[in-house]
C-alpha cells in the first residue's frame, strides 16, 4: 500500500503542476527550497538529499520540452475514452467479503483494521510525534 503512495507521489510530481513549473522556470532550472517543501507536503515524500533534488530538476527539464509543441486552438484530450459510452452497472453486490486478502497488503494490522501512524500525515510536516523508525515505514523517501 505504501509503495503505491510512493508511486502516486512521484507521479504527482511529474504530472505537470503548473504553478510549480513556472516557479521552477523563474528559478532558472533550480528548484527553490520553498517549492521543495511544498512538494514534499503535497506528495508526502522526503527529498532528503541534494541528489534527489537534482534528479527532480532533471525530470522537470525533460518535461519542459513539451512546451515546444504548439497547442494553440487544440482542445485538450482528457481521456481516450471521451467519445465512448460510460457503462452503467446495475446496483448489485458482487464484491467484498475478502478482508484477509485485502489486509495482506498492510504493513501492520490490528484485528481487522489497517494501522497508520497518528495524526494527519507525515510527521515531518504535521508535528505529530513519531519515532524515526516509525516514520521510515510511512514517509516515503524520494529516490
Amino acid at each position, binding site marked *: 500500500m505504501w509503495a503505491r503512495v510512493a508511486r502516486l507521489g512521484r507521479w504527482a510530481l511529474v504530472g505537470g503542476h503548473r504553478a510549480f513549473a513556472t516557479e521552477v522556470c523563474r528559478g532558472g532550472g533550480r528548484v527553490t527550497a520553498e517549492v521543495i517543501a511544498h512538494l514534499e507536503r503535497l506528495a508526502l515524500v522526503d527529498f532528503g538529499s541534494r541528489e534527489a533534488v537534482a534528479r527532480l530538476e532533471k525530470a522537470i527539464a525533460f518535461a519542459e520540452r513539451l512546451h515546444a509543441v504548439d497547442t494553440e486552438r487544440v482542445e485538450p484530450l482528457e*481521456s481516450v475514452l471521451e467519445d465512448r459510452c460510460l457503462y452503467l452497472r446495475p*446496483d448489485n453486490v458482487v464484491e467484498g467479503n475478502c478482508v484477509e486478502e485485502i489486509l495482506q497488503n498492510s504493513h501492520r494490522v490490528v484485528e481487522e483494521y*489497517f494501522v497508520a501512524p497518528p495524526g494527519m500525515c507525515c510527521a515531518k510536516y504535521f508535528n505529530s510525534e513519531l519515532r524515526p523508525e516509525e516514520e521510515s515505514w510511512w514517509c516515503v523517501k524520494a529516490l
Partner: protein
Amino acid sequence: MAALMLRFCCAGRRWTLSCVDGAFRQGRGPLTGSMSSRIRGQRSVAQHSFTTAQKLKKGEREWAAVVGLEIHAQISSNSKLFSGSQVHFAAPPNSLVSFFDASLPGTLPVLNRRCVEAAVMTGLALNCHINKKSLFDRKHYFYADLPAGYQITQQRLPIAVNGSLAYGVCIRSQHSQVANKTVRIKQIQLEQDSGKSLHDDLRAQTLIDLNRAGVGLLEVVLEPDMSCGEEAAMAVRELQLILQALGTSQANMAEGQLRVDANISVHHPGEPWGIRTEVKNLNSAKFLAKAIDYEIQRQINELESGGEILNETRSFDYKLGCTVSMRDKEGKQDYRFMPEPNLPPLLLFDSESLPAGADPQQVINIDQLREHLPELPSQTREKLMLQYGLRPEYSFTLLNEVGLLEFFHNVMKDTKAKPHTVTNWVLNRFLGSLKQHSLAVSESPVTPSALAELLDLLDGRAISSSAAKQVFQLLWRSPGKTPAQIVSEQKLELLQDREALEQLCRATLEGHAHVVMDLKKGNPRAINKLIGLVCKAALNRADPTLIKEILERQLSS
C-alpha cells in the same frame, strides 16, 4: 410554484433574506423608529441565540452574518458508487471492501446506475438544472483512509446546478408561526466517500476501516443565503426530509449519512462580506445551529476587539460548546484537480434526446425519473392543510417529528373524531407527553388505535374531555389496556342519569350562594365557575354543555 415565487423574492442582495423574519427581535428592547426592517433583520441575525445579548449602545454598529452550507448525503444504494461491494452501516471492519476500494493496481471504476438516478432525482426535487453531460475529476489529498490518494468527484461539470430549497423558520415572537424562506442551490455532485479513521492516541496509531470508502455521496452546495444557525438547521432539516421522501439517502445524521460543513462570515451591513471560516463536521442536528451561532458571535467578538478573522477550518467541540481551529491547512490546500481518465463523460437523456434502440439498462431518462418522483414534504404539507384545514405550523411539526405524520394518519384512519380534534390531541397531548419523557414516536406506549378509540369515546360524548385526558394518562402508564377498559374500570363514563345531575346542580347552587349572587349581579363568567364546580363534584363525569343547560334552567326558575 410557491418555491419559484419565494426564490424570486430572495433574488436581491443577500441580506434582504433575513428582513422578513422578525423572529429574533423579541426581548431585545425597543427599536428606534428610523431603523429599517432590513437592519432589524440583520441585527437579530447574530445575536438571537445569546441570552446575554446586550443592547446596542449609541455609535455601536450592526453586524450581519452570512452562512453557506456544504452537505454530504450518503446515497442509499445496495452497492458502492464505483464498485460492487456492499453499502452497510456497522459491518465488521474491512469486510465491505473490494480490490478497487482498497485501490489495488489494475482496478477500474464502474459507475453504479442507482447512484446516478439518485443524484438526478435529488436534483429534480431541488429544482435544479440537470446537466445532460457531466464529468468526473480527481481531487488529490493524502489521508490514510483514502487509499488512492485522490477522491473521484465532479469539480468541473457537476450533475445538477442552479436549484433552490424552500424551507420554513419559526417566528418566535408570533407564537410558532412559520416564515417561508429559500436558499439557492449551487450544485449537486456525485463523489466517493472516504474510509473511517479510528485514532488510538494511547498507542500512537490510527486504525483504518475502508468499509465506507467508495460509498456514493451527493454533495449539495447551498449558496450563502442563510444568516443564522436556526435558518441553516431548518434548511438542513428540509433537505433531510426531501432525501428521505425520495429514498435517495436515509440521511440519518447519527449514522453519518448526512454531514454538514458551514462557511461563515460576518460584516457590517452595506459593506463587503468578511473573511469566512469553515466549520467542519456538524454531524448532529442538535448542535448544528449552536455551532454556527457560536462561530458568528466569535467572529463578531474577535473583530470588535480589534482582531482579524483567518480563513481557516474549525471544528465544533460538542463538550466545550465552542469552535476550535483545526490547524490542518498550513498554507493553502492544493487538491491538484485533474480529469478522471478512467471515466468517460456521464451522459443523460430526456424523452426527446433518447437515442432510438438504446439499451434501456444503459441510458437514464430524466423525464421518466421526473414522472416517478414521489410526493415531496412541501406537497405533503399542502395536502394536510387542504384536506384537514391544518395550520401551516402544524403541518411543519407533523413532518418534522420522525414518525408523527404516520401516527397522525393512523389515528385519522381509525377515528370518527374531527381532524381539528385529532391534530390538537396528537400535537399537544401526545407530542407533549413524548417530549416530557424524551421518547420517539416509535417508542410511544400509546398506539394510534388506542388514541383513535379514546377520541371516538370523546367524540361520541361517552366521556368528558377532562376524563379523556385522565384516560390518556392512564393509557400512557398501562399500555396493555384499551381506553374502553380504563373508562369502565375508573367509572369515567359520562353520567347519563338526568335526575342525579339535576340533584348535583341543585346542591352546587345551594353550596355556593356567593357565586350565584355574583352571577345575578351580571358577571357572565360566574356560570363557568358553577359548571366547573358541578363537573368537579361529578368527578369529571358530567357533560359541561348539559350541566350548563340544567344550571341555566334551575337559575331562571
